[in-house]
């Protein structure tokens, strides 16, 4: 496992939680672009970018659900994307350490998709969200599927 202070390298993967509503189907699994929609409301709008976790920093990918109500974890899948692919799209991720218990190590944000640019210019953000969803669907990069 890597320390979250270690530089992010091209050979790493990042993980993202995906709610069951953003699965177009489960067999075969397919997600829609809104799996990468920034949160606009609530306590934690994605003003600095949508959230991911570095897989190299967590012992088990299911740890990224630690902040989710235990009774609702079955509603989430987990997908992963290689950093090298994000770099090829000019969608870099920045370290953004988690400070709220339960702390999940390796939290990063993707500034290229954030609540402000989604709200102000959705036409430029939606194709990026779709590219990420297409990658997941084509590569079948699902580590976990929702069960409800």
């Amino acid at each position, binding site marked *: 496992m890597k320390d979250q202070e270690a530089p992010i390298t091209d050979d790493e993967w990042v993980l993202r939680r995906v709610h069951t*509503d*953003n699965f*177009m189907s489960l067999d075969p699994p397919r997600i*829609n672009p809104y799996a990468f929609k920034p949160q*606009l409301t609530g306590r934690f709008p994605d003003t600095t970018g949508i959230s991911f976790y570095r897989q190299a920093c967590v012992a088990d990918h299911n740890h990224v659900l630690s902040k989710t*109500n235990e009774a*609702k974890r079955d509603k989430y899948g987990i997908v992963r994307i290689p950093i090298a692919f994000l770099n090829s799209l000019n969608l870099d991720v920045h370290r953004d350490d988690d400070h709220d218990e339960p702390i999940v190590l390796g939290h990063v944000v993707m500034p290229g998709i954030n609540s402000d640019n989604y709200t102000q210019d959705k*036409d430029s953000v*939606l*194709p990026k969200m779709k590219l990420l969803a297409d990658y997941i669907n084509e590569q079948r990069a699902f580590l976990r599927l929702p069960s409800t």
Partner: protein
Amino acid sequence: MSTVLESNQAALMGREQYKANPRHIATSTAYFSDTFDREQWERCFAKLREIRSYEHDWNDEGAEPLSEDVLSMAFLVAKMLRANLQPAPTQCIATEEGHVIFIWDECVEYSEVEIDRYLRCTFRKIRPGAKRAESTEFSPFTPIV
């Protein structure tokens, strides 16, 4: 409700806008264009009814239920598309800020229709390789020509 819709209609009619022409969707989804899938439309309406039943925290992130105005407009748009023998969307979703989005994503071009909380209806499509979506507002009240 009807007052809101009527005033929205008036506002939309006054704009220079894309006419409510779902042929654009059919063009984008040529794969389906000769197929009118009754069952898939029924699933779409069932999903809208499910969204209508959403309660506080329906998305597990604290979202509020969608407004009845938005849902009525979404039903209206769906009925208009179905009446014009358009392909059923691949998926219908609600967003945390209270919008409804119909998604067509089984063809070369991605298409969607979004009904936002101001009751604007926006059609978007993404051509392969495009860095920007093409979007245009339309009114479900404008006759199709």
